[in-house]
Structure formats: C-alpha cells, structure tokens
C-alpha cells in the first residue's frame, strides 16, 4: 500500500477509535449520571426536571444550609424546595437554575440568597459552572451561560465524556447503595451540626485579611451583573415574587461595619432601580456574638438556620 494512504488510514482509524470509545463511554456515563440516588448532582437534576414547589430557594452553600425548607413550608402553607448548591457559585449559576425552572413552571416565590461576592469574578467563578455541563445538550437555555466558561468550551463539548469530567467516582458512589447518606437532606435544606466552640476558631490569617481587602475593593463582573438583572426581569415576566436575601454573617459585638464594596453598591443600585424586595440580615444584631448559632464565620448551623428561617418567615408574611 502507498505509504501516504497507509498513514492517512492510520490517522483515520485512530481518530475513529477515540470517537467510538468517547461516544460509548459518554452514553454510559450520561445514563448513570441521571440515575444517581443522592448527592448534589441528583439534587440539581431533581430541581431541573421534577421540582414543582411553590417557593424556591436559590444560592450557594449559604442558601443550602441557612433556609430550612420544611419550616417555611409549614409556616406559609406552601410547598418549598431549597435548590441551593454548595461550592461558592456566582449568580450565573442561580440564573441558569432559575432560567430552566421558570421555563417549565412558574413558582409563586423565589428567594435568592445573595452576597455581593456573587457578582464578583473571583478565581474559579466561571469554572464552577462545570456542574451544568451534563445538562448542556438537554437544556438549550443553559448554553449561553455554559459557554461563558471559556472560548474553547464548544470544542470540548464535542466529547461525550467531557460533560462528566471528574464526576466518575460520585456517579459510581451515588448509583450504589454502598454510600452512606452523611448529610441530612430535607427538601434540599442541608443542616450543619457543627458549632464554633470558641472565638479562637475564627482566628484570621493575614492572607484572609488581604483577600477580604481585595474583595472589599472588587467591582462587579459585567456578565454577572447582567445575570442578576435577568433574574429580576425573568421573575417579573413570569409573575414570580422575588426576594433577594442576605443571610446572617458572624459579627462580634461592637464590630465596626466595613464600607460596601463597589460590587455591593452596584447590586444595591440594581435592587433600588428595579424595586426588588431586598432583605438584609447580614448584620442582624440578633445573631451578633452568638457563636453557638454558627459553624464558621459565613455559615449558620442548624440551630442558627432555624432562628434565621423563623425571622425570614415573619418578614415574608408581611409581604403576603
């Protein structure tokens, strides 16, 4: 055989081999991904495909661990689901979730847990959108958001395996019964049992202070600001009552409040312009100094979450 034809044939066979294995493995992974019985992926799939709750809660870990869905549901006599996702997501993730869900049905109330850092492009903000990759082919409304991850995302998504990158072990784990449900999941709410034992546990490092200083000067990311505005518009269009909430952060008594970052100012301006119901509990004096209600500086434990949820319910009742 002519050596050029032989080489072309070899390249073709090699690429074909990769394509076949990639597609077959991708099909298997897709099948297994959507049959997981627990875990974050399962919660996301449930929210996208099946959830029909009247009240939906969105946000990152602070949403997931701070809003007791059952308390809200019992008090307001409406079904409630906490769709908060652990992992320091930006508002882009919440916009993606709200976009998919409101396309399927219109909930009555959406609560969006918000921190100004959610509209700041911190390290990995866009990378974290990778949790949406398995849904790329299924939900066309997610594509523009997913493609913000990088200029080569479309190329990477030619692979059927890539959307499930780094998910293999969780897929296996949550498809078998060998896993132990370590975290209690009540309609999406995941309580934290840990407590801050003493103020020493909150000892700050110079690096953390520097990071906080940088964050306090950080400006809002254009895409994220756009996502925040789109959430507000979407809720108005679908006639959904939107509440943007900042849940408590641990403060010691008499702590001087820092000046708001440019990102925070941008967010407040957006809320004001759009008449958004913004409930700010971040410096709520009820929680000041109460170490026993926090698991760390930014997260309430189960006890704190219940107290906060009660306070939120009172506010929501006023709006009803």
């Amino acid at each position: 055989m002519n050596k050029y034809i032989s080489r072309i044939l070899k390249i073709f066979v090699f690429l074909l081999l990769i394509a076949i294995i990639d597609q077959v493995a991708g099909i298997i992974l897709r099948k297994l991904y959507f049959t997981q019985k627990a875990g974050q992926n399962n919660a996301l799939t449930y929210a996208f495909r099946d959830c029909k709750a009247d009240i939906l809660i969105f946000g990152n870990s602070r949403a997931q661990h701070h809003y007791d869905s059952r308390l809200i549901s019992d008090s307001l006599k409406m079904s409630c689901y906490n769709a908060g996702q652990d992992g320091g997501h930006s508002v882009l993730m919440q916009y993606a979730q709200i976009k998919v869900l409101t396309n399927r049905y219109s909930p009555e109330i959406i609560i969006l847990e918000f921190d100004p850092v959610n509209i700041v492009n911190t390290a990995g903000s866009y990378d974290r959108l990778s949790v949406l990759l398995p849904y790329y082919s299924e939900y066309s409304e997610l594509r523009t958001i997913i493609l913000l991850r990088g200029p080569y995302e479309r190329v990477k998504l030619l692979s059927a395996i890539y959307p499930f990158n780094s998910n293999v072990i969780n897929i296996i784990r949550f498809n078998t019964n060998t896993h132990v449900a370590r975290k209690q999941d009540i309609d999406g709410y995941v309580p934290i049992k840990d407590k801050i034992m003493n103020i020493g546990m909150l000892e700050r490092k110079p690096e953390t202070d520097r990071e906080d200083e940088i964050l306090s000067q950080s400006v809002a990311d254009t895409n994220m600001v756009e996502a925040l505005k789109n959430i507000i518009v979407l809720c108005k269009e679908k006639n959904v009552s939107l509440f943007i909430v900042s849940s408590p952060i641990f403060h010691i008594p008499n702590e001087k409040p820092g000046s708001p970052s440019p990102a925070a100012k941008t967010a407040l301006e957006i809320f004001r312009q759009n008449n958004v119901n913004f409930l700010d509990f971040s410096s709520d004096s009820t929680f000041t100094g109460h170490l026993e209600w926090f698991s760390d500086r930014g997260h309430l434990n189960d006890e704190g979450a219940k107290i906060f949820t009660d306070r939120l319910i009172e506010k929501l009742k006023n709006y009803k």
Partner: protein
Amino acid sequence: MVILLLSGIFFYMFAGAVTFIVPAVIILSTFFCGIMISGTVNQGKKKVLFLSGLVINLGLLVFFKYINFIITSTFEGINFISKIIWSEHVLKGSSVFLKLIIPLGISFITFQAVGYLIEIYRGSHIPEKNLGVFATYLLFFPKLLSGPIERAHNFIPQLRLKHELNYEQIVEGLKRILWGLFLKIVVADRLALYTDAVFNNCRQHSGITLLVASIFFTVQLFSDFAGYTSIAIGSAQILGFRLMENFNSPFMAKSIAEFWGRWHISLSNWLRDYLFLPLSYSVARRAMKKSYKVFKVEYISYITGILITMTICGIWHGASWNFVIFGFLQGFIMTVELLTRKVRKKVKKIIPSWLDTLGGMGFTFAVFSFTTIFFKANTVTDAFFIVGKIFTASGPFYIGEWQQIIYCFLAVFLLLIVSLSQEYSVKKSLQLKPKYWFISQIGYVFLIILILLIGVFDGGQFIYFQF
C-alpha cells in the same frame, strides 16, 4: 527560521509588547559582546567585554525579578537590627514596592545568554555571526517560558539544518505532548486542588494532612514541570528540533546529589559547569595554599561550592527567603551525604541491594518532599509552622471531597506505575511495544480518555512559568 523567530517574538509580545524590550536588550548585548570578545586578543579588554555582557544580563534579571525582594529584605533587616540596638525601628512605614511586569521566562533566557557568553569567553565556542539565528536560539518558542536551558552549541547547529515536516517526527512529538498533557492535567492540576486547599489554610490542618499535602506537592511539582517539558520537547520535535531531556525519573534517585542529576537536568548542568566547578576549583586552589589539615581540600571545595551553588539555585526559583532556604537545604543535604559517604558504603555492603535501593529512593523522596514545604508555603513563617506541625500536631486527616482525594491517590498511583516501568523496562530490556500497530494505539486512546474523564480542565498555569 524567520517564521520561528517571528513566532517567538509574537509569543512574547502576546503577554505585552513592552516586556519584549528586556529580551531584546539581552539578545543584542549578548550577541555583540560575543562577537567582540571573540575578536579581541587583549585579555584585559576581553574580560571587560565579558563582564559588561554579564552585568547587562544579570543586572536585568536582578532588577526585574529580585529588586523588590532586595528592597524589602534591606528595609526589614535595618529595622530588625535597629530594634535590637535601639529598641525601635529606624525606618517607619512600609518599604517601597516597585510595580514591575516581570518579563516571561526571564530566568531561562538570561541563563542561556550567560552560558553562551561564558563559552565564548573561555574560547570553547565561536560566536554566532547571524543575529537572526542567535535571536531564534534564545526565543525558540517551545522552550521560551520554562526551558529546557538549551546550550547554544546543541541548538544553533540545528537552526542551520533544513527542516521538513516528517510524519514519524510529528507522531512522536504528538505522543510527547499527549504525555505532557496527562502529567499536567491529570496529575499536577488534580493534586494542586488538594495542596492549595491545605497550604493556603495550613493553620487549620493537622500534621498528617500537612505531611500528605507535602508529598502530594512534590509529585505535583514534578508532574507540572515534567509535563511542560514534555510538551516543549514534543512541540520542538514536530518542527524537527531536538531539545535536551530535562528529567530522568528523579524519584528513582538514591541520593539528593543523584536526584539533581535527574531533576531539571538543564539547570543542574548549567549550575555545575558555570558555577559549581569554577567555584570549587577556586576554593580548592586557595585551600591548597593554606594547607588545611582537619578537612581534606576536596571536602572544603565541594562543601563551599555546593552550598553556594544550591543556594543560588534556590534563589533562581524565586525572589523570597523560602527559596533561599529551599536551595540551602539541598546543598546542606548533599554535604551530609558527602560526609557520610564512607559509613553508607559500609552499610551498603551488609544489606541486600534491594533494601539499599528502596531505602535510598525512600530517603531521597522524603527529604526532597520535606524541602518542598519551603517551596510551596506562602511565607517562611508558614513553612516553619508546617514543619513543626507535621511532627507535633495530631488530628484528623483532611479529605475534603471524597472523590477529590481518590483522584489524587489515583493520579499518584498512575505516575508511580509509569515511572517504575520507565526506570526498569529499558534496563531489563522488557519488550513492552506491541507487535501490532492497532494494539499499540490503544494505550494512547486510553490516555486521551483518561484526560477527558479525570483531567482538571480549569487548572492554573504551569508553576515554572513564574521563574
């Protein structure tokens, strides 16, 4: 060659056109100094020209890379001394910090230029007369950012050869690139997720967590740099160029001295030829004149040479006291190895060879991992804190996400298997190459699938880019 030179310049300008001024000055000064040194008979004039070239090259390196470190260290040093003597700081406020953009790969370009000048000065090489060829040698884009630190006499002759695209070379080059991607994406970036989480919050972690993170970081550092080198060699191979190998299974080394002969070989060789040997000979000459009795002259020259060389090697890696300590420790361990050579020889005779090999490899890996704590830690204080905590603080092992830690161990395991097979398959002449082409390709397909499946696609840049 014109295309290569333009791609090098474009590659450089991509990071900012202004930063290209620095390599341009290095290229021009080295090129003309080289020609003038070679054309001068007068030894004094030769020396002046040589020193001028060195001052320009090293001056730029020191200015851009180390000036802030020098200013800060001087400032803190004066305050430290004044505090002891007068119980108060003489200098108030904080030290000046110059906002400089460090030109990409400046350490690599400078070392290649300095090496070239030394060879010309010694008379072992004739200078390159074509500025384009010389500039292409320093700006060859696959090795521009992180080496290897290629010698002029290895590389410049290749630029004069006619290069045509060669199917076999392209295939081999692509294989090297694939292996490099595997090292970077599957191993290094995966381990970085764990090591960054631990080292950036070292005060919150237990001794066992810090120990495991230190071991992971050593593997990460190797995979990151060896991955880059593999991609650089593969890219050059596609273009028809051969770059020198920079790694030779370093974790199979049985001593730190052997380790540095297998790790970042181009830097080790450079330091050996242009710093350690001249320094050791110079010390030996002086020591012989003074006829020391306690230590043999060779010991004195070796110890002085190795301590200075390895400390400079440390500083080359970065402008901070962490790297100074990292380098000094390498030299110190090599000194201990020299002083215990006789004892170790005796022990070697009475223990089985496999135990000697395993013990040596284990010792080298453990000691190097220990020193990399200084490489990775954010500050010297953090580094000492971590060292102290490893030996004293008990507590739970930090896992984070289960799947992350499993991927980390899987990555280390895969690397270990490959390293062992690379080290022993050649020596024992194991024929691992399958007879049929199709079967041999399965391995590469598996590698690609593995990258897609467990690679970290959102990882950071190569660690050695900062040098």
